[in-house]
């Protein structure tokens, strides 16, 4: 425990009945860093996230935030220290977007110097839903709704900060239902949170997006940690091809960031002749 502000999983294992979901995973995220959890379906990304958020208790090992075992914290104490955005947040809630975002203020104490109204306004803007503030949540599209919940989580982070917490933000597939522009909106907001010194852990499927957005990537496979490190080191064609079981090309953009591209055809005689690890000149950048 050299750095007391870490969010860490220490040798955690998790199983449901006979199915082992995680096995001996140790991973630590640092303040100010964005750590992406990547890997194939069923690799244990969401399970690891739920352990890091204190929702699940590992069968073995423990999860700690700033040196404190998450299992020893009450739900309220946890809510003040970390916020979580689920992959599938509630659809059918009888609130407006503003009311939903304001629910994030729940962990704030009565005497805290927390300006709920200001925090809500700021979060709505950061999540790009300020024009939807008075719309009923159930009338929104999937992506709009997701951003409304993201605003709620940002408010909770601010409320947690007012209570001396707000240390970590955990996002499960925050971009899955978003268009390209709004992916950028949400990820920029998450980066801003990290820039203010919080820990950001995010589950992402899109490896190129992860490479562009995260400081480090943890690759999970079959419930174990396959690799962790800077995107350029972790995302190699050989490793990804072995991990996902399909040919995957890793190219580099002008700044050297990995761009991950599967090389498979949906047709029998697909063209497999792709030059790997080769820089490309013009690529859309986040």
């Amino acid at each position: 425990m050299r750095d007391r502000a870490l969010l860490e999983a220490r040798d955690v294992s998790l199983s449901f009945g006979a199915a082992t979901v995680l096995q001996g995973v140790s991973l630590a995220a640092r303040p100010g860093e964005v750590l992406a959890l990547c890997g194939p379906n069923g690799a244990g990304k969401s399970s690891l996230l739920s352990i890091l958020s204190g929702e699940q208790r590992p069968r073995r090992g423990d999860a700690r935030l700033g040196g404190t075992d998450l299992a020893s914290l009450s739900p309220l104490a946890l809510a003040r220290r970390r916020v979580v955005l689920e992959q599938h947040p509630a659809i059918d809630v009888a609130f407006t977007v503003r009311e939903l975002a304001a629910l994030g203020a729940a962990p704030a104490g009565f005497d805290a110097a927390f300006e709920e109204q200001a925090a809500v306004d700021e979060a709505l803007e950061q999540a790009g839903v300020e024009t939807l503030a008075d719309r009923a949540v159930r009338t929104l599209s999937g992506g709009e709704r997701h951003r409304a919940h993201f605003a709620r989580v940002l408010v909770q982070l601010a409320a947690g900060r007012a209570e001396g917490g707000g240390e970590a933000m955990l996002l499960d597939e925050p971009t899955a239902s978003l268009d390209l522009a709004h992916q950028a909106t949400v990820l920029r907001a998450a980066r801003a949170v990290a820039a203010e010194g919080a820990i950001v852990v995010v589950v992402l499927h899109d490896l190129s997006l992860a490479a562009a957005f995260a400081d480090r990537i943890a690759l999970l496979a079959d419930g174990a940690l396959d690799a962790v490190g800077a995107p350029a080191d972790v995302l190699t064609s050989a490793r990804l091809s072995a991990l996902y079981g399909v040919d995957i090309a890793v190219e580099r953009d002008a700044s050297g960031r990995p761009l991950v591209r599967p090389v498979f055809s949906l047709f029998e005689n697909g063209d497999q002749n792709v030059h790997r690890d080769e820089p490309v000149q013009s690529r859309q950048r986040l």
Partner: protein
Amino acid sequence: MSVARRAVSSLGAKPWLSGERSVIVVVLGVVAALFGIAGALLGPVSLSLEQLSTTILEAATGAEPSDPVATAILLHVRIPRVVLGAFVGAGLALAGCAMQGLFRNPLADPGLIGVAAGATVGAVTAIVLGGLLFAEAPAGFRPYATPVMAFFGAALVTALVFQIAKVASDHTGQTGSVATLLLAGVALQAIAFALVGALIYISDDQQLRDLTFWTMGGLGGADWPSIAVAVALITIACLALTSRARALDLLLLGERAAFCSGVDVAREKRILGAFAALGVAAGVAVAGPIGFIGLVAPHMARLMVGGSHALLMPAAALTGAALVLGADLAIRTVTPPAEPPIGLATSLIGGPFFLWLLIRRRGGRHA
């Protein structure tokens, strides 16, 4: 019902400012109060507002009644009835509100956790087997056997539902899911109604008539002592449930999101279940199971003031009170001096409303 119409028409995109919503709560309070006053004045003997105010003033100051007949009717028949109706309605509505929030299901009502089933078993047991069970009991207890047994039946079955759900979820390693609670409630309800069926089978004609009327509810039979107990218990339940407004808001986001937002889900579930059961059981014990209020009142309130529980709960309580008082008024004035059971009126309001809700829900726009 222009308020309701305005509320329904505002369901679309136009949001209600919270100031306007607060006005609606006040309007609901006025409507409930008007029904209550009408309930005190109307009946086989019509009384005037002046007689009502004089009687209340005299009773409050302990003065000799100047109009003994009106005083007797008001103090011993109509005011107890109105007070009981208002509190039973509020208790049922708030319990329904809490259950709809907890189960995140607009069709949920307190019946789901076995309250009504337990109360029915208790009451029917007292009616059918009372002669045997309470043969040794002091004579003063006999009139209270049915409400007391109904209350303990409700408490017992609700406790069983929660305990079984807890054991089941401990067994599966999941933190007590709402689905387990729901299924435990369904199973215990089936068992409870089998017991009721057995008791009906062995009952004689008079008992059968008594228990049939009991199951349809009624505000007429209660005296002040039992009303006072019911009012006290319902008040405690209402205050406790209302204090959980924020947790209920967060529970609407799902158990996971609620937990991540700082709600101790298992604890809230116990608190909500216990006080919903208390609020319903206390009312059912004295007035019988009055159907549909727990389902309908929270919905009407939600259409008027929106989903946020801080405003929804007072609105639902007032709506429940107004509905019960209105239904009681209706059954007493339709065929005086005959008095059909109040359950007929509430079911006639509630049944069609429930169907309307189902159809709207199928359209994917449910409240």
